């Protein structure tokens, strides 16, 4: 179905008019003082605290926008089918797959990538380095964001909690045994930081 271009569509209320003059008169009379309407496909995205307004096409995935267009290269494209977890980002506290999300449906959302986790000096990063939690490193940002979302929700995870949370992240190098070690250490570090904070 193509759009009818013979009509003039009010960008505020979608009412149609036969001529531009009628539309202009309507807009001035009805919508004066309202904020400017946003063009179709314009989304507002906050990535690691930085705000972006970007015009997207409906078929663009969140991964394409965040990785290819905005340049946050940590959410990796690997399977592109939601089966590997490499493209994980945190949205509304949930670890979600950016390859299976349409950017146009993320309007107004705030997203955190592994860059954001590093920027915030989260102890996960040091723990991941210390425990050699990567070999080729391609899947690592997906693991880090998943682990960060877990620690945000559950500051004292058990080994089983960690295994369950990381169940959707695949690593071809086989670094699996190292991840729980790093996450448990980061969790202990976080609790120590918070404890110090509370004691003054």
């Amino acid at each position, binding site marked *: *179905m193509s759009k009818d271009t013979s009509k003039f569509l009010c960008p505020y209320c979608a009412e149609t008019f036969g001529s531009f003059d009628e539309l202009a008169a309507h807009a001035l009379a009805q919508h004066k003082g309202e904020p400017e309407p946003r063009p179709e496909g314009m989304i507002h995205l906050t990535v690691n605290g930085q705000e972006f307004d970007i015009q997207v*096409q*409906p*078929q663009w*995935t969140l991964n394409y926008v965040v990785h290819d267009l905005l340049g946050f290269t940590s959410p990796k494209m690997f399977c*592109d*089918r*939601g*089966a590997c*977890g490499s493209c*994980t980002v945190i949205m509304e506290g*949930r*670890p*979600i*797959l950016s390859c*299976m*999300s*349409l950017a*146009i*449906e993320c309007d107004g959302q705030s997203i955190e990538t592994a860059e954001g986790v590093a920027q915030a000096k989260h102890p996960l990063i040091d723990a991941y380095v210390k425990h050699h939690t990567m070999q080729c490193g391609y899947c690592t940002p997906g693991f880090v964001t*998943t682990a960060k979302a877990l620690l945000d929700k559950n500051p004292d995870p058990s080994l089983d909690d960690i*295994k*369950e*949370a*990381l*169940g*959707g992240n695949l690593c071809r190098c086989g670094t699996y045994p190292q991840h729980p070690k790093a996450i448990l250490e980061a969790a202990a570090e976080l609790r120590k930081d918070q404890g110090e904070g509370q004691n003054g």
Partner: protein
Amino acid sequence: MKAFAHFNAASVEEAVSLLQRYDGKAQVIAGGTDLLGKMKDRILPGYPEALVNIKTIPGLDGIAEKDGLLKVGTLAILEDIAHHPVVREKYSALAQAARRTASPHLREMGTLGGNITQDIRCWYYRNPNNRFPCLRKGGGRCYALAGDNRYHSIFGGSVPEGCVAVHPSDTAPALIALGAKVLTSQRSMAIDEFFQVGVAKTTVLEGHEVVTGVEIPQPAPGSKSAFIKFAFRKSIDFPIVNCAALVQTQGGKVAQARICLNAVFPKPYRAVAAEEAIRGKKLNQANADKAGEAAVAEAEPLSHNAYMVTAAKALVSRALLACSG
């Protein structure tokens, strides 16, 4: 992905009217994890001209118990269902099923409505670029009949000519065991009537009908429900076979049982024979095994999936025993 139009529906009515306008050429998108995979792989000869996003409709993501019913909105996230204290306590089969669905990330995105309306699984049907124009796509034959059918139906096809694909939902059998009702934009129906066997689609939904939620009656006193799944990997796979059961016991004997298998037939397979076999009996290993045998008595495995009959038999027995005590 190819280009398509995209609409954020503000209400159920708007979603329905958009679907009507596109007359079968638009698809509803919620979590999107099944739909986008299908679109990326271009498995179908046709391609949706538009997607209607229903995540923007307020009030469809609730999980709440009210008037003896558990009401779960169509947009309720699977991970939230899995960890909801009321669901875990009283509707355990649903919580366990939601917790075993896909991977943690997919559960954080996937919705209950999407999980029960997802498309069937068959590697010929889902092969990229419409490689196998099978019966389900309007083609001439079911490739799985003569091909590799190790994950296909053990209870026959959708139609006499074949289509032995299976329904992969984990939550659907749990909802059937719990006797849920499906609410849509135009009606409500028992979930047993929601799924259909046909090559065109997996549900009785009309082209412009949208699932809005499910209602589950509170299990009667003395009831317990459980869900068990057999898959290769514990954390991420689709089921090879899964089974949900709801058992009400009175005086040490089974008064009522509802048992449903899935991934064994093109729609969730309610094991009525097993329900009859266990009714009035004590819930012990021997009787549970007999119920398992009754469940698969009419199975007709294909050339590569006889093992699924054994699995289904064992799962029925284990799901029943999980409801004891």
